């Protein structure tokens, strides 16, 4: 896999495999995947439903353990971490954004965003301040006291993104982050990701929407648990848009 050679890769996977079931019903959701993600890179993973995208993402974020293979995050091997170690990893090093938002229904937007910081042992005051900032960043400071049920899908996802950033993770993993959103909300979320990317965060986004995928620097296609294709999207400038889709008058 080609990477941005100058920077040490943040994520490294070697022969990563995840199996479900056994015998006849064995499913290789992720099948011998090698992957490197450079720090600061934005990577998109595409593929048909059921090809193992979510599973891969869950492995990268310590939500699940691989059946085989090695996995490093920031130079630390994480595939054999204890449950406690994984919890710490999810808390401090990774931010997760889900298609279904997964906000806590009984907590307000503000409290949802505070949660990871509090779990990490920050003082309530510091957590509150950080949550305010983040909600401000995602443009929801006026909705801080609302429960998720009182927010629109796009707003919920923005709260979830703010929450993912609460502990200033190096890596943000997003699983179909716009799958439940309309086009306007999708654009809002995309803009947020763009900001994160330019601020130097490493992003891995799973999607089946080409438009979202192409916001990344690199696009990987998956089929049946394996990588089948890779496209570097930043390679070779296309020149001014006009040259491609140029509008010209008949002369």
């Amino acid at each position: 896999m080609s990477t941005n050679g100058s920077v040490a890769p943040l994520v490294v996977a070697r022969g990563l495999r995840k199996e479900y079931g056994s015998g006849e019903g064995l499913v290789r959701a992720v099948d011998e995947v090698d992957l490197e993600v450079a720090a600061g890179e934005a990577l998109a993973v595409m593929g048909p439903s059921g090809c193992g995208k979510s599973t891969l993402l869950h492995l990268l974020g310590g939500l699940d353990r691989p059946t085989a293979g090695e996995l490093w995050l920031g130079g630390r091997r994480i595939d054999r971490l204890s449950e406690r170690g994984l919890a710490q990893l999810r808390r401090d090093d990774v931010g997760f954004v889900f298609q279904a938002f997964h906000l806590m229904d009984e907590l307000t937007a503000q409290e949802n965003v505070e949660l990871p910081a509090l779990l990490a042992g920050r003082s309530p005051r510091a957590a509150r301040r950080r949550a305010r900032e983040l909600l401000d960043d995602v443009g929801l400071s006026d909705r801080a006291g609302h429960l998720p049920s009182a927010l629109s899908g796009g707003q919920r996802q923005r709260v979830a993104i703010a929450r993912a950033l609460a502990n200033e993770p190096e890596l943000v993993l997003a699983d179909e982050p716009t799958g439940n959103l309309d086009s306007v909300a999708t654009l809002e979320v995309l803009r947020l990701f763009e900001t994160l990317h330019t601020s130097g965060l490493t992003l891995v986004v799973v999607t089946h929407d080409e438009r979202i995928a192409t916001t990344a620097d690199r696009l990987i296609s998956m089929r049946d648990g394996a990588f089948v294709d890779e496209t570097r999207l930043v390679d070779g400038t296309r020149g001014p848009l006009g040259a491609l889709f140029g509008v010209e008058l008949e002369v």
Partner: protein
Amino acid sequence: MLGRTLLAFRLVAASLRRRPVEAAVTLVAIAATTTTLTLGLALHGVTDHPYETTRAITSGPDVVAMPTSSPTTSGPRISSPKAGSAPRTNRLAALDDLVHAEGVVAHSGPYPVSFPTMQVNGSKVLAVAEGRSSRRAAVDQPYVTEGTWVRTGGVVIERSFAEELGVDVGDKVTLDGRSFPVVGIAVTAAVPPYPYTVTGVAFDTLPDIWSQATGLIWTTEPIARSLATPSVPLSYMLNLKLADPQRASAFVAAHSANHALYLESWQYVRKVESQQMLPFQRGLLIGSALLDLLAVASLAVIVGGRLAERTRRVGLLKAVGATPRLVAGVLLLEYLTLALLGAGVGLAVGWFAAPLIANPGAGLVGSVGAPPVTPADVGWVVALAVAVAGLAAWIPSVRAARTSTTSALADSARIPKRRRLLVGAASHLPTQLLLGLRLAARRPRRMILTLVSVTVTMTTIVSVLAIHAHESQAAPIPRSVFAIPVNPNTRNTDAVLLVLTVVLVFLSIVNAVVITWATSVDSKQPLGVARALGATTRQVSAGLSTALLIPSLPGVIAGIPLGLLLVKAAGHGSSVTVPSGLWLAAACIGILLGIGALSSIPARIEARRPPLDALQSELT
């Protein structure tokens, strides 16, 4: 219609298959509730007006009269033993007059009564031997619980007396040196049971009788007469039925003044009975009250538990186009299936357990001889189960019908209000406590449910402790006075209390488990989210424990005075022995630790699976 019925059944089957644990826990909870109710009903047979029951069955007399040698005043106590004796004819004449007194509508006797010393199983005790014929008496026909009624050459022993002496049908007893077979055991409402039989007997011949425990036996008239001695001559006992039983006390007062008679009203016998109620009977009374309370608490837990989940399911069904009727029907069917199964299990368990605790062997009819669970009991239990199912289905249906489908899906019908105090207090606490507090603050109903359940549990345990403390501290009848070796078989007081304690504590534990389980299942999604965000297993389980312990603490504390109050109420105002502080503290801490430990189990089980499962289960 057929299609819809099929659909309903299919949905119910799928739901039960998909949530086997929920189904199992609901089943266990309903089984426990119905067991509780079955036992409670069985106990009512013993504790509900036991004297009245016995009086009705035995055609108990309204007034019992015996001749005395000198006029006495009526009352429970004869102030001093009387010396000398009047001629026999005089005595009977006085009784004959009484039969024709105003207000008397029926009578039996006078029966000859003698006072032999009875020897059995190595103990020696004074007996009151009443001579009876084998014919049925119109008034006071003792109810035979074992064996037969008096036959030539045999004796029948009053049940409490027999129990204390450890005598069974077929044993032999010695009366003033002569051996007699025991042919039966019976109960009566005419005189108080052992050891207070003597308080209902005009016993003017033996001094110091009051310091002795006395029991009643029945035999044939010739034998009773033959047991009289010059020093302890024959006496008589006459049973009267009045036109107005409520006037018995007045009747006694009127006739005691004018005749050389000793009279006793049925009210007096009842008073002795209840005042001297044996400690285990009191235990049973408290026990049955507690069983009822526990049944109510379990019911609340079943109906209120997982309400959120059920409401969401109603929303889901509505979202796919099910009519409110169908939704309610499906839910009802599901809970009815579980409730009836649970009721069956509960009745079966109750059937086997009831005789263990509801057969006190007291001097009253109680439930002995009757089946432990009557058809009426079965009816009540099934009705309760159906009511539980109905309520468990009805509340979420109504709630979901009132709210829009979308908010039912999100279960945001109950947008939790900010509980300022709790949420504010939370900001100064460690994170896991904070997590728990916030979960708790947003689920006020669940908190109340937990509070009630824990209060009942603690009340139960405190009452049991109080009874035991009372038992061990002061037995109401100092056994040394009887000079009777205590037969281990007859000491069923402790056995009954033990069984009752075990049953109550077991049911309390089932209750605690159900409430903990329901809370943790309802919190599965938020806790799964917390884990995905990096909460450790310990943080999650501490959060869950906190959410449960907050309402448990006041519950435990409230349980102490409530338990003591209950014992006091059941004890008809007699004094209550407060269990030692050490025991109370142990009970408090034990319950809290138990709930803490219980709540950590689901969190730990959950922790062994990736947090994804909890998140994904939300979607399906």
